[in-house]
């Protein structure tokens, strides 16, 4: 039992239970908070994988931005059904389907020689090399991503803006 494995197991346990909390909790605000903790534990996983930069990005964007936006949305769309939001009637089938997906995927991972024969050393990623490859090799997707953000921005404004007119 080495130290890494212990840390990993603890974080994973937290992650999975928080994730389950997100999808099981009856109160949607609790769900949002569980989501926050789950995302923070994902950042922990990144730290285990020796990628501090991504862990920080994860905390900032997910924990800082996305969860806040979700909380805002929750506040803006608040109504009386929030504290006891129900599952839909399909939930047993949903459970079966996700277990089936879980089984299929895990079986394939266990069967894969490539995955099992992977090296066991974790190679750290430096921020510097990350940055240089982001702005050289990946420049085109990077530019495209900026356009995607632009579209999302314009779209969100157009859609959410409450201008006059309408019925």
């Amino acid at each position, binding site marked *: 039992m080495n130290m890494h494995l212990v840390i990993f197991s603890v974080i994973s346990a937290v992650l999975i239970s928080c994730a389950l909390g997100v999808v099981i909790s009856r109160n949607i605000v609790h769900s949002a908070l569980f989501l926050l903790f789950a995302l923070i534990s994902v950042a922990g996983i990144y730290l285990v994988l020796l990628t501090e930069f991504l862990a920080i990005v994860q905390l900032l964007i997910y924990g800082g931005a996305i969860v806040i936006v979700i909380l805002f949305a929750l506040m803006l769309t608040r109504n009386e059904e929030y504290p006891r939001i129900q599952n839909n009637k399909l939930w047993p089938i949903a459970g079966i389907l996700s277990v089936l997906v879980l089984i*299929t*995927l895990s*079986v*394939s*991972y266990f*069967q*894969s*020689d*490539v*995955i099992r024969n992977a090296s066991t050393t974790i190679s750290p990623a430096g921020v510097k090399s990350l940055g240089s490859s982001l702005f050289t*090799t*990946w*420049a*085109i*997707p990077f530019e*495209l*991503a900026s*356009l*995607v953000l*632009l*579209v*999302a921005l*314009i*779209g969100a404004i*157009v*859609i959410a*803006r409450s*201008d006059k*007119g*309408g*019925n």
Partner: protein
Amino acid sequence: MIEGSNNLLLLTPEFVLAGLALLVFTADLIIPEGKKEWVGRIAVVGLIGLLFVTASTVMGITQPVYNNFLLVDHYSFVFKMIFITVGIITILMSEEFVKTNLTSQGEYYGLVLLAILGMNILVQSQEFLTAYISLELLSFCLYVLVGYSKFNPKSNEAAIKYIIFGTFSSAILLYGLSMVYSVVGSTLYSDIAQVLSTSGFMDPVAMLGITFIMIGIAFKLGIVPFHSWIPDVYEGAPIPVTAYLAIGAKIAAFAFLARVVIGVMLPAEELWSSWKIIFAILAISTMVIGNGIAIVQTKVKRMLAYSSIGHSGVLLSGIVVFGSTNGIVLESLGYYLVGYAVTSFAVFSAITAVTYNNNIELIKDFAGLSDEKPLLSASIAIGLFSLAGLPLFVGFTIKFYLFSSISIGGYLWLAGIAVLASLVSLYYYLIMIKSMYVDVPEQERAHADITVRWPMWIVIILSILMTIALGIYPDPLVNQLNEISDLLK
């Protein structure tokens, strides 16, 4: 392999398009309320210019650009021209609709332009992340456009459904990509193909990953069983956007699928030989379910949505014969897509003209249209006859050409099923035609308030003429498309 160049000049069309989109957004700020249609007209002029720019910069060039992430070749050239034309037509046919029904008119056109940019990059990408991001660029524009009629609850609902489905399928696609990546270690098509085609390599993780990626793309195309979103989204979206989804987005997704199949699967022969079976099964179920359900529809848009699902099935059966014919199938698919686009525009533009300022949506509401608006109903009827594959129209030649290439690929039975499916499709198209030409309207002069402006006339007349002209003499177009089949050799 050809060494990738960083010659960004080859990306001129994309830069110009992005610039044009920004220009349109800026113009929207300057042009006063009430004259917003000029934003669209600027976009149209810009796109027409872009056609020439594209033809003059990238025609006839085959070169990988930027670390092999993108490939500029004849295939992408042809599709770029198609997308730009689709964009022009969409903007022209939107004008009346946008002015009457939507707020924030200016941004509408900018989003259409950015969607074209997404499609353009999608067909030339040779790397999954680039493809994914351009797909998202396209989808984001479409999410917004679908929900653009924001005081219409149906439009809201369609947009919600679309974005949930879209992100869900993106998540699946990405998960598949991550599985492939954890085996292959790269996201370039060529690298993946190289690893997959290594003799006897059948890693379950990579295989499932490929499956998930295909499911993500199948969602965009609306392949059964990933089709359920299509009718709802098509019905709720503003109708020019429906046309854009059914024509532009579908062609883009299809071109992307063909590219992935050619780039990733074909080199791995073992993989492809078993995937063919899956594609054949999907194609059959798509044709059967799409055309079968269309029969019982009562709303025009839903009927067209199911019929477009049926067409996806036909297209998919063209993919099945990749590798077993000498390239001719790719050309016939391209021809099919062009013919399908032209024909669908004839139908959609006329339906837009009929419905933009009233709430007609049922097939029976079209009763008596032929007496009041003969040209509009003729346009719909010609389009539907063509979609059903009757001769004299392009619908016949494209189907004949595609079915011929499917059958020389050794899949005569698949072509037979496709023929039967188009027989079924004739039935529900006839219901619509019967409604327009034969049925008696419930009230007199039900369509009296329809007025059609010149941009719409241009679209309608042009698409009818093209539907007939391409059906009678397709040679020039087919020759143009001939070169794209080089990809399959």
